């Protein structure tokens, strides 16, 4: 598409931007993967009294393992119709349940760790199950959607929606049956228990609310124009 629309000069800028974006995204993902593995799993679960040296070594190993996993992921992506289909499938499995739990964690102070854990786990597993059923040919992609003749990518969107609902629903139900965290522990973490600071002397056009409204108006205007 870039070769079709971008003339000389702009195409160089376009390709440089794409490469920079991919490199930055990859670096961010890799450091997030390493940090989650080393701090949240290795240190928290497997080796609670790990020294700094051991953590650094584990971080390096996790980086290499993450790179190898990424290479393996590229081979899986090769079997998909397009890369965006692959991204969409992965997002419906990981991001949709994750977003459900993050939103609940931010705005629902009754949420408990058990609710969040099982909601996320069942949401991811159910989405992966739906993906697998499609891949193995057990059901057609349109099985998961209310629209006839849906394609692979649209079905993944719908699977993401189902996974979101399963995660959120299960997390709320389990939370009501488990012991909640006291309010003192949640101060500053949950919306209802956070004191929001307001900058009184900032001009109106420098506030996030003003730019949120501008963005919303632009979003609606562009949608109406290109409808």
């Amino acid at each position, binding site marked *: 598409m870039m070769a079709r629309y971008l003339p000389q*000069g702009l195409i160089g800028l376009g390709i440089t931007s794409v490469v920079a974006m991919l490199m930055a995204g990859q670096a961010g993902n890799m450091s997030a993967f390493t940090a989650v593995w080393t701090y949240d799993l290795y240190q928290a679960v497997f080796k609670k009294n790990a020294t700094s040296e051991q953590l650094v070594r584990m971080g390096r190993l996790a980086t290499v393992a993450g790179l190898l996993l990424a290479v393996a992921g590229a081979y899986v992506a090769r079997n998909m119709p397009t890369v965006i289909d692959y991204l969409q499938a992965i997002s419906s499995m990981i991001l949709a349940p994750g977003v459900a739990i993050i939103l609940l964690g931010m705005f629902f102070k009754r949420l408990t760790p058990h609710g969040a854990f099982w909601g996320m786990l069942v949401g991811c597993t159910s989405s992966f199950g739906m993906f697998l059923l499609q891949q193995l040919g057990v059901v057609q992609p349109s099985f998961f959607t209310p629209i006839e003749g849906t394609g692979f990518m649209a079905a993944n969107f719908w699977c993401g929606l189902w996974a979101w609902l399963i995660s959120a629903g299960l997390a709320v139900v389990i939370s009501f049956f488990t012991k909640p965290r006291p309010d003192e522990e949640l101060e500053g973490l949950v919306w209802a228990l956070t004191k929001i600071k307001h900058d009184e002397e900032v001009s109106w056009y420098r506030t996030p609310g003003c730019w949120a409204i501008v963005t919303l108006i632009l979003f609606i205007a562009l949608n109406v124009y290109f409808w």
Partner: protein
Amino acid sequence: MTEQIDTETKGIKPIWYFVGWLLLIVGFIVTASGIYGMISPPPPEMQTVLYELHTSIWWGTVIAVAGVIFLVANRKTSE
């Protein structure tokens, strides 16, 4: 802590000044390549969609102007 940061950053140009230089250089290159493309256009089968609009010149100029604005707005060093 704040004082320490203040002394460390004293006399240093803000990062947006250098962003301005980057935008100006990139804008100049894109505009120049657009002008070259206008003077000696590629054969029709190699031309992009709406080639006659010379988007490189327009967007190169926009980027360069943005660079100049960044440079002028951030020309002062921190005191």
